[in-house]
């Protein structure tokens, strides 16, 4: 998966509180303005029959999106070049969308990217895969195998 796509996915699926905490930690080092304030709306999710056939509308989904423009404050008083951060978050979650967009912009600031990747994205991804793993294990314990008699009509 593309690096940015993977990071944006991690931010979108993250716990809002975890993002809030990371943002508070870094708050003094950057400033941002909104290019598009967080706004919630419905997005049509499309599918393809058999994954490759005709397109069809699967259904609508509530999404919050946000775009910010962010600059880092440097020691020498000069601001870094601005980067634009985008986010699309499931549900009506304006604050989450704002934070995710801020981090997407921060991750495009070259001197920040590696730090953040290690301190934020990797833990978030680990937490997520752990949660998925747990869910899968819990489901696996309830697994039932069905045996049916073949009646021979289909043969």
């Amino acid at each position, binding site marked *: 998966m593309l690096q*940015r796509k993977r990071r944006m996915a991690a931010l979108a699926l993250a716990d809002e509180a975890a993002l809030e905490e990371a943002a508070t930690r870094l708050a003094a080092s950057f400033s941002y*303005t*909104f*290019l*598009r*304030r967080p*706004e919630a709306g419905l997005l049509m999710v499309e599918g393809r029959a058999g994954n490759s056939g005709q397109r069809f509308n699967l259904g609508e989904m509530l999404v919050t999106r946000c*775009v910010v*423009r962010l600059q880092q404050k440097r020691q020498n008083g000069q601001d870094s070049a*601005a*980067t*634009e951060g985008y986010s699309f978050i499931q549900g009506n979650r304006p604050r989450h969308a704002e934070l995710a967009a801020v981090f997407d912009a921060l991750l*495009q600031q*070259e001197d920040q990217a590696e730090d953040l990747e290690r301190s934020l994205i990797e833990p978030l991804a680990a937490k997520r895969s752990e949660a998925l793993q747990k869910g899968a294990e819990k489901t696996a314990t309830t697994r039932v195998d069905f045996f049916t008699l073949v009646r021979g009509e289909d043969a």
Partner: protein
Amino acid sequence: MSTLSIATAPGFARPVDDAQAVFRAVLQALSRPGMFVCLPALPPSLARDEMTQGMLALALALCDQDSPLWLDSAADSPQTRHHLRFHCASPFAAAPEQAAFAFISRPESMPRLSAFHAGRADFPDRSATLVIRVDCSAEAPESEVMEVTGPGVKGNERGIWQAFRLGGLPAWFWTDWRDNQALYPLGVDVIFVESANSGQGAPSVRILGLPRTARVRKAVNAKEGSLCM
């Protein structure tokens, strides 16, 4: 890394309220031909001001993914296109006749009115709307007092005409307008946008609507009017 090289500016400060207020002003302008109407909200301007704040306000209020835009060569720039694509998600028309909205910053070199889509008999509402930047100051060069009548002009049934003055239009404009008006129910609609801020202090931009029903002639002795506060 996909950092966009062209900076995007924010749109309206309050996207929903401001766009609705501007839409209301456009309705007012098109239902009262020849009267100036103030735009109640303006987005921040772009670095290049060929696409004025007033034109941007109309673009943000009116355009969406179903309305192909055409920009004249003065208004057109990668930055403007990026800005409109970002905020309106509109596609861009390759030629004037494919556009739902045309934004014209230099009317003196604009295409003739017949170059724009006038609608079809079964869908007259699919015609183009032209947003034209004009100079409304009294000392504008070549500005001529014109007058208009038709639905929406107070007293039009008694033969009353409403006067207005616009500067910077090409010489052929009012001849073309007569041909356009004769196409009714087909034909393009025009919204004129003042290029300069008219008032001191709070910036305000006036618009003037000419729907295809409006008949225009050189002024005889009618009074100019404005719905601006």
